[in-house]
C-alpha cells in the first residue's frame, strides 16, 4: 500500500497555489491535512498527478471572529486547533461538540475544518455542522472568490460545488443567536468512527435547523423530526441497513430537538 508517484508543490502564497491548481494540463489536488486523501492514495484509489500542499501558506492559517461576529476558519486550520480555542467552545458549542466526534486526536491534529468540508463524506460530522450552523464556504479560483451557502455546497457523495481550479479557502460559521440551543448526536460502530447516522441541531428563537447526516448522499436540513422518515435516502451497507439508518435518524432527530429546545430554554 504505497502511493503512486506525484509532483509535489508547497507554494508560499494562495495566488501561487491557485495558479498551480489552474493548470488544466495537470490533474492536481489540494493537500491540506491529508487525512482522507492520503489513505486513498495509499490504496491507489486516488492517483493525482500533483499535490498542492497548503502547509506554507500563512495567509490561510487563521481562526478568528470576524466583524459580524462570525467564526472565520482558514483553510489551514486544523480540527485540533478549533477544539483548543476557548472562544469556539464558548460561542459555538455545537461546532465544538460535533468536532470532538471527528476521528481521533491523531486525525484532528492534521485534519482541517475546510478539508473535511471539501471532502464531503456524507457520514462526516463537519458538513452536517456547517449546514446546521448556516455556514458559508468561501472558495477561490481562477475567477476570484465566491461564497457558497452550506445549503448549496454539498452536492452528493464526495462531491461539492467546487469548479475546476477552485479550492476552499475559508469556512464562516455565524454566531448562533442569543437564546439558541443545540444538540449533537450520532451512532458510530466504535469510538471515533464515522457516524452510521447522526443529527446536528440548532434551535434559535427565529429558526430551527435540524440536520440529519449519514442518511442520504448529503446532510439534510429539515425543520421538524416529522419530516425525517420521508426525507432520508439512506445507504444500505455492511455497517448498517438503510432501514436502520431511517429508524435511528428519526429517533435521534426527536432526541436532539428536545435537547436543543431544553438548552435554548435554559
Amino acid at each position: 500500500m504505497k502511493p503512486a508517484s506525484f509532483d509535489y508543490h508547497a507554494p508560499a502564497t494562495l495566488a501561487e497555489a491557485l495558479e498551480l491548481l489552474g493548470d488544466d494540463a495537470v490533474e492536481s489536488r489540494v493537500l491540506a491535512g491529508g487525512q482522507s486523501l492520503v489513505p486513498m492514495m495509499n490504496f491507489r484509489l486516488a492517483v493525482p498527478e500533483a499535490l498542492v500542499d497548503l502547509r506554507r501558506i500563512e495567509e490561510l492559517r487563521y481562526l478568528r471572529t470576524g466583524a459580524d461576529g462570525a467564526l472565520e476558519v482558514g483553510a489551514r486550520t486544523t480540527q485540533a486547533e478549533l477544539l483548543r480555542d476557548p472562544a469556539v467552545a464558548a460561542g459555538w458549542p455545537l461546532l465544538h461538540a460535533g468536532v470532538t466526534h471527528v476521528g481521533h486526536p491523531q486525525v484532528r491534529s492534521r485534519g482541517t475544518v475546510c478539508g473535511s468540508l471539501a471532502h464531503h463524506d456524507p457520514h462526516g460530522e463537519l458538513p452536517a455542522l456547517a449546514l446546521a450552523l448556516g455556514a458559508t464556504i468561501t472558495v477561490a479560483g481562477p475567477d476570484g472568490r465566491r461564497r457558497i451557502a452550506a445549503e448549496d455546497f454539498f452536492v452528493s457523495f464526495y462531491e461539492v460545488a467546487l469548479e475546476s481550479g477552485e479550492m476552499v479557502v475559508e469556512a464562516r460559521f455565524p454566531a448562533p443567536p442569543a437564546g439558541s440551543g443545540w444538540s449533537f448526536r450520532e451512532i458510530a460502530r466504535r469510538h471515533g468512527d464515522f457516524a452510521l447516522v447522526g443529527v446536528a441541531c440548532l434551535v434559535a428563537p427565529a429558526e430551527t435547523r435540524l440536520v440529519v447526516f449519514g442518511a442520504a448522499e448529503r446532510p439534510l436540513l429539515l425543520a421538524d423530526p416529522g419530516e425525517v422518515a420521508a426525507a432520508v435516502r439512506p445507504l444500505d451497507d455492511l455497517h448498517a441497513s438503510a432501514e436502520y439508518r431511517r429508524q435511528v435518524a428519526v429517533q435521534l432527530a426527536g432526541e436532539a430537538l428536545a435537547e436543543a429546545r431544553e438548552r435554548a430554554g435554559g
Partner: protein
Amino acid sequence: MADPGGEREVRLVVNGVERVAAAEPRLLLSDFLRHRLGLTGTHVGCEHGVCGACTVLLDGEPVRSCLVFAVQAEGAELRTVEGLAGEDGELGPVQRAFHEAHGMQCGFCTPGFLISLTALLEERPGASEEELVDALSGNLCRCTGYANILAAARAARDQAAERA
C-alpha cells in the same frame, strides 16, 4: 522544474537531532523514519490511518506518520518512541507505566500507544478518564484487550498530575 516527482532532501529534527535524507514526494513519513533514518521503533500496521501504530509527535502533536509525506515534515520537529526515555537513559514515566501495569504483550503496537499517551499528558497532565479513552482509542492493540493499557494510562496520568 527538474523532475518534480523525484527525490529531494528533507531536513528535520528527530528526537533533538538534526537529520537529513533524501525522499521522493510519495515517500511516507513512516517509511522515511524507518528505512531512511533507521528509526524502526515506529511501526506500520495498516497504512490507512486506522491502527495508530505509526503515531509520532510532529511539532508536538500526535500524527499518523503513514498519512504524512516525508516532504511535508521538512523543517519539523519530530519525536518518536526512541526519544521517550529520559536524558539519563532511564525509561520515561509513560514507558514505565506500561511495564508496571503489564500494558503490552507483543509490543508491536506499543510505541504508538506510548506516543499518543505522551501527547495527551503533555497537553493535559490531569486528563479525565474520557480524555484518556479518546486519546487511546485511535490506537489498535490485538493482544492486551486494552484493560492494562488503560490501567497504565491512569497510572501515568496520576503521576503526571502530581508533577504538574
